[in-house]
């Protein structure tokens, strides 16, 4: 019995050692840190594009290249509160990445940057908060027919011209009526 327990324990220790060394070999991915250096200007306006920089480094400080980070914006709309993904970026050889972001609402923006270790699912994240000001309308809905320069004026001009001429004809009829009263005896009743 002693022999069995001792063998089992020895197997376990070997197993753990192998596991630990395996983990140690895979070390850098497991032990990276995500740090954010933000050079976001103090005042941002709605509609401006800013770059949110992020840098990834391993536990030993070496830059982490080719890692994908996901950016989320905390938002609330129509009674739903949550996070909307606003972009992804891949780190370059210096371990840095930046996301071009265009704030669309004034107020405080809370951005969470997340890095998921591939294959292990561990999530590293960091948040940053900044303020945005501004209130200019970005979208303008402009339906309708609008022919610059002419539009309705031309139509009105044409219609007015035609009715003026008809009015002139009406005045000619008045003239005929008036001429019947004065001058010229009736020519035997014949119209010809």
């Amino acid at each position: 019995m002693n022999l069995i327990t001792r063998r089992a324990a020895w197997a376990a220790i070997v197993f753990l050692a192998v596991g630990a060394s395996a983990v140690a070999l895979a070390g850098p991915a497991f032990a990276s840190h995500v740090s954010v250096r933000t050079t976001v200007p103090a005042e941002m306006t709605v509609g401006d594009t800013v770059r949110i920089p992020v840098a990834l480094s391993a536990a030993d400080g070496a830059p982490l290249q080719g890692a994908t980070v996901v950016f989320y914006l905390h938002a609330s709309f129509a009674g739903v509160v949550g996070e909307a993904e606003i972009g992804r970026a891949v780190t370059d050889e210096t371990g840095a990445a930046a996301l071009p972001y265009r704030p669309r609402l004034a107020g405080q923006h809370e951005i969470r940057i997340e890095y998921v270790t591939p294959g292990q699912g561990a999530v590293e994240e960091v948040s940053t908060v900044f303020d945005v000001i501004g209130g200019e309308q970005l979208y303008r809905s402009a339906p309708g027919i609008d022919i610059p320069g002419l539009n309705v004026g031309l139509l009105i001009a044409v219609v007015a011209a035609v009715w003026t001429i008809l009015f002139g004809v009406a005045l000619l009829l008045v003239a005929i009526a008036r001429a019947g009263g004065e001058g010229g005896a009736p020519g035997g009743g014949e119209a010809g």
Partner: protein
Amino acid sequence: MAALSAWQERLEETALAPVRRTGLRYWALVAFLLAVIGWGVYAYSIQLRDGLIVTGMRDRISWGLYIATFVFFIGISHAGTLISAILRVSQARWRTPVTRMAEFITVVALVCGASFVIIDLGRPDRVLNVFVYGRWQSPIIWDVLAITTYLTASITYLFVPMIPDLALFRDRLSGRTSRWRGWLYRAVAIGWVGNVAQRRSLGTAIGVLMILIIPIAVSVHTVVSWVFAMTLRVPWNSALFGAFFVAGAIFSGIAMLIIVMAILRRAYSLQEYVTEKHFVYLGYLMAAFAGIMIYANISELITHGYKMEEGVEFQFRQLFLTQFGPLFWFYLLGGLVAPIVLALLPRTRNVPGMVLAAGLVTTAMWIERYIIVVSGLRVPLMPYEPASYAPTWVEWSMLAAGLALFALLITIFTKVFPIIAVWEVAEDHEAMLARPDIARPAALKTPELAEGAGR
């Protein structure tokens, strides 16, 4: 000279006859037409009570017989423009005896056409919104503008050349007719005595109107076509619609004129003035416009059919083969080819032949308007089964009432106003007699012959 006065006398008697004597047939006809109109009024009251659900129109095919008839009547109204104005501008003398009838048709057709738009409205009680809230960018407003302008111009153009004839009526009928008639003629003749100044004003007025009314008429049916062409429906989305509709309008106008001419000629014995020559010449014009319509149809069909865009294949199938096949082929063969054949064959180049051709054309043009409206709306816009449309008794009753109103107004016109432009026909006749070197057509070289026949 004696022959001339006798001829003149006969002309005036012919013009005055309808007003002087009214037979039983007239009253019977009026009674019948009033009955048809009365039935239409009843049908409309049902529609007002229950809503447009009493028609066959539904969401997918939302226009039908009413709009087709509206376009048809507005098209007919171009009879006057062509005969009265275009031929007057080109100084075609032969048109003179028929100008008055053509102008009658124009005014009456416009009135009937406009009423069909009102009948088609879902809320006729709000029709004044069109004037209070009207949007200049809407094709319907363009319609309203164009049709009111054309109606005003047509009524003026009917009235102005009629003034000397109304004066004739006033003078010849005074004391021998009812008081209201006497008063009417005195009023509308606006003191015409025929002096130089009046003649000059009349000439100017007619000259201005005959030039003005041509662009107005062209614009009217163009904007009517734009009610369809300003939408995105596949069969309607064509730049050709304006010209196509104007050509079709003049075409159907000529046909209706031939029919009305034939009827009035028989009813009021106008054979001496409205001769076979008039029917043949109008038949030629009709054949020419049939040729133009064939060209327009070929243009449309080939340019769409060559490419077979989405929806076009469906449209072609329903036009040529399935849903509308019989109607469309009747329109093509009976309405476009037959008039040309009838005008070219010597055997049918006479009054009955031309009247037959005109009847075919009128029917075919109404069918063509109906096909444009209904087949255009039937092409499915999204993936659904195509709908079907069949007019109900209410719609047919309104169509009958509209045609009856058209006939009734013309009938009443002939009893009140001179149906022939007496003074113009007389002037043409004298001008022709004064030029013995010009060969005269058979109808006009017979003062002696007519005397001999004794009227």
